[in-house]
């Protein structure tokens, strides 16, 4: 450990925990700007803490945290080098920050949101004013309004509606065009056709002086459709943050040991294979590597999800993302950061998410059936009136367009988002967060459930197993020693002492990294630790319970005592598994843990299991199930589950889980509340049922009114009424999703 005494190029206190952020400062004269992702900000107090940490610093002109996106914008006058000091201040307040390039992380969501709201406002303005102008016209038909006045009112409503619909509907036109060009059709194709044809025929009719002018219908149709899109956007506001979370997990800086023994800071991204790095206690391993010297215990929770640290020695492999829990290590970098384990996992997640993005939403499925039928009806109407009905070309076209207007899937556009918003509210009251609009549809389709073990079915913490034959004095002595260590097994041991019983307090305990604790007692050395450290021959007393981790206590003149630990199964696990089995969802376990503990749990819960699966294997297992036609719900909470969570048909994580897993999952459940899962599935099935009902309601309106339109008897008034009544019915029906008690 002599190499630890080195020189650092800068004063460490001004450097944020994970290295310099200087490379991300955007500079314009004396005006500097930095964008940071902030981890762990949730509430008003967080806003105050984060902004307050830097707002009072000299030169800072702006420090604003966007709580929705968890991003902080910093602006200050002065030196770009202040960036590190400011970032360190925020980290000192307890929030981890990572700089990002706004060009690199898409800000397009923000832009889409703004343009949606803009379009909605324009459509709302046009719809209300066109309607205001239409009502006198409808009344005018009954009270013999002069033709000149009527045409004036219709012309003004056209002046308002035409530009508004052309502008506000761009979103739909663009999407329809993209779909058509790719040889597909989606819900936006009939919407676009309906909107544009309505505008066109209304203008022709206005010029002819006829009564069939539908400007108000076009504008209100657009308004309702946009409302549906805005609701949908709000529902999936926090999607796409998984990659940002991986960015937060990667270390930014590393310490390199130069050939002459001095230390140098470098960015983690600049590490080249072959460099020698120093990983101090508490630091994260920046890249995959091999240990050259030093012994330690590595916290693998972020990488494999296993709660018990791994003892490492020279020659052992290190994986990026492990945290050094023991002594300082020298290691050789084997891979660059971009090829390391964490980056690999981020890529798996990204690929899985892209693949899932290709699932077809319910509304698009319906429109694939709907569109050809309606267009056939419209074409039939046109041909009938042109050749058989004896109407002129313009009249035949007018009747055909009336069919399209009546059949325009306005109710469909609203049907699904309205149910989504209401159901999401019902779930939120239970503490369940949905991340994505179509999650309900996917959750309702689930026919298999795959569960992670550690942290999901179990508590993810080792606990001392009871052993009646054990000497109480041994436990008391062991707990006294264990109180001196932060090792998870030591903490579990210290916590296992029954309340009120005495713990033998000892002083001067020495911790040997990767081995155990030693205390020089009056009779000689007392040791607590691994079998080897305590001088117990391997295999002694073992075999009884392979599933458990063990710690030994050796005392002078007495036989060694064994303490066994196991990850305790959550009280709710058995109930959940029974529930799932009853629902015919064939639960199974898919874990990255070793064979022994996984099979032990699988036997207790009586479910099939796959053990020792790395992230890629987990993903492949799910893919295989998908290939068999199963719709899998994956439940997991670790970083190693992230690719599987992103790749499953639908997935769930917990608020106690790794942030990455919460972002990769579609559903986030409150910590440890396994039993909420069946509730969420019930709500989702009900939601899907309501969505289908809404589609049927919309179809009934069409079935009733399309024939009327085909005979040419639909007036603009009838169209307006049909549209508002169907939209209203569908919305009211959606409210039922929030009824009932879900506990």
């Amino acid at each position: 450990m002599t190499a630890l005494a080195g020189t650092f190029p800068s004063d460490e206190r001004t450097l944020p925990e994970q290295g310099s952020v200087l490379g991300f400062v955007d500079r314009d004269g004396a005006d500097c700007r930095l964008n940071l992702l902030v981890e762990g900000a949730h509430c008003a107090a967080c806003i105050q803490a984060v902004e307050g940490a830097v707002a009072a610093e000299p030169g800072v002109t702006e420090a604003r945290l966007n709580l929705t996106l968890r991003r902080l914008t910093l602006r200050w006058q002065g030196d770009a080098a202040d960036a590190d000091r400011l970032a360190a201040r925020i980290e000192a307040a307890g929030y981890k920050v990572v700089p990002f390039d706004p060009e690199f992380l898409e800000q397009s969501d923000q832009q889409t949101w703004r343009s949606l709201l803009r379009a909605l406002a324009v459509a709302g303005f046009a719809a209300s004013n066109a309607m205001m102008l239409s009502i006198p016209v409808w009344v005018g038909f009954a009270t013999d309004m002069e033709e000149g006045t009527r045409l004036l009112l219709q012309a003004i409503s056209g002046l308002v509606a035409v530009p508004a619909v052309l502008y506000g509907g761009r979103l739909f036109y663009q999407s329809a065009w993209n779909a058509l060009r790719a040889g597909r059709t989606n819900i936006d194709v009939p919407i676009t056709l309906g909107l544009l044809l309505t505008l066109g025929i209304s203008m022709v009719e206005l010029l002819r002086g006829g009564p069939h002018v539908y400007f108000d219908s076009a504008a209100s149709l657009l308004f309702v459709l946009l409302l549906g899109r805005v609701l949908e956007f709000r529902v999936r506001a926090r999607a796409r943050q998984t990659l940002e979370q991986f960015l937060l997990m990667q270390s930014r800086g590393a310490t390199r040991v130069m050939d002459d023994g001095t230390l140098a800071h470098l960015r983690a991204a600049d590490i080249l294979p072959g460099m020698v790095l120093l990983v101090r206690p508490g630091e994260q391993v920046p890249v995959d590597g091999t240990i050259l010297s030093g012994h330690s215990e590595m916290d693998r929770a972020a990488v494999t999800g296993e709660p018990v640290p791994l003892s490492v020695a020279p020659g052992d492999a290190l994986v990026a993302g492990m945290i050094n829990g023991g002594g300082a290590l020298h290691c050789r970098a084997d891979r660059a950061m971009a090829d390391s384990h964490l980056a690999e996992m981020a890529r798996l997640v990204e690929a899985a998410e892209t693949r899932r993005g290709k699932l077809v939403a319910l509304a698009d499925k319906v429109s694939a059936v709907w569109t050809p039928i309606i267009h056939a009806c419209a074409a039939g109407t046109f041909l009938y009136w042109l050749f058989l009905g004896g109407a002129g070309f313009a009249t035949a076209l007018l009747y055909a367009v009336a069919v399209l207007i009546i059949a325009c899937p306005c109710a469909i556009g609203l049907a699904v988002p309205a149910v989504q918003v209401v159901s999401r509210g019902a779930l939120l009251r239970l503490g369940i967060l949905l991340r994505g609009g179509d999650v309900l549809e996917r959750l309702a389709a689930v026919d298999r459930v795959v569960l992670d073990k550690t942290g999901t079915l179990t508590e993810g913490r080792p606990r001392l197993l009871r052993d009646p034959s054990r000497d109480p004095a041994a436990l008391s002595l062991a707990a006294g020693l264990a109180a001196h260590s932060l090792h998870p097994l030591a903490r579990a041991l210290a916590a296992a002492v029954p309340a009120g019983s005495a713990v033998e307090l000892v002083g001067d305990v020495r911790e040997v990294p990767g081995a155990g604790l030693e205390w020089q007692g009056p009779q000689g050395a007392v040791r607590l630790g691994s079998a080897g450290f305590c001088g117990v021959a391997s295999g002694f007393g073992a075999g009884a319970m392979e599933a458990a981790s063990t710690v030994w206590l050796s005392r002078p003149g007495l036989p060694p005592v064994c303490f066994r630990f196991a990850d305790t199964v959550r009280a709710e696990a058995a109930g959940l598994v029974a529930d799932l089995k009853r629902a015919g969802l064939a639960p199974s376990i898919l874990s990255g843990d070793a064979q022994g503990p996984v099979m032990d749990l699988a036997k207790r819960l009586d479910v099939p299991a796959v053990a020792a699966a790395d992230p890629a294997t987990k993903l492949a297992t799910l893919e295989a199930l998908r290939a068999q036609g199963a719709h899998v719900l994956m439940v997991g909470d670790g970083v190693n589950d992230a690719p599987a969570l992103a790749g499953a048909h639908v997935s769930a994580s917990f608020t106690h889980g790794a942030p990455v897993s919460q972002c990769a999952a579609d559903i986030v459940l409150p910590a440890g509340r396994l039993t909420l899962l069946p509730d969420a599935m019930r709500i989702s099935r009900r939601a899907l049922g309501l969505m289908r009902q809404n589609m049927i309601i919309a179809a009934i309106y069409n079935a009733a009114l399309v024939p009327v339109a085909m005979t040419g008897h639909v007036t603009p008034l009838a169209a307006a009424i049909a549209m508002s009544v169907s939209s209203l019915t569908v919305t009211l029906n959606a409210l039922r999703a929030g009824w009932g008690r879900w506990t």
Partner: protein
Amino acid sequence: MDVILFLIPIALGLGGLGLLAFFWTLDNGQYDDLDGAAQRILNEPDDKVGGVER
């Protein structure tokens, strides 16, 4: 009925003003962080939090 020649432009003009006001709030970023806005009312107003631009 001549009165509608005044009424309609006035109605449209007022509505248009409202629309422009909405655009201004939108471009001002007032809808960018609805969650944060809901939480910020809980903070003390006299802090320098949020920078001098407030």
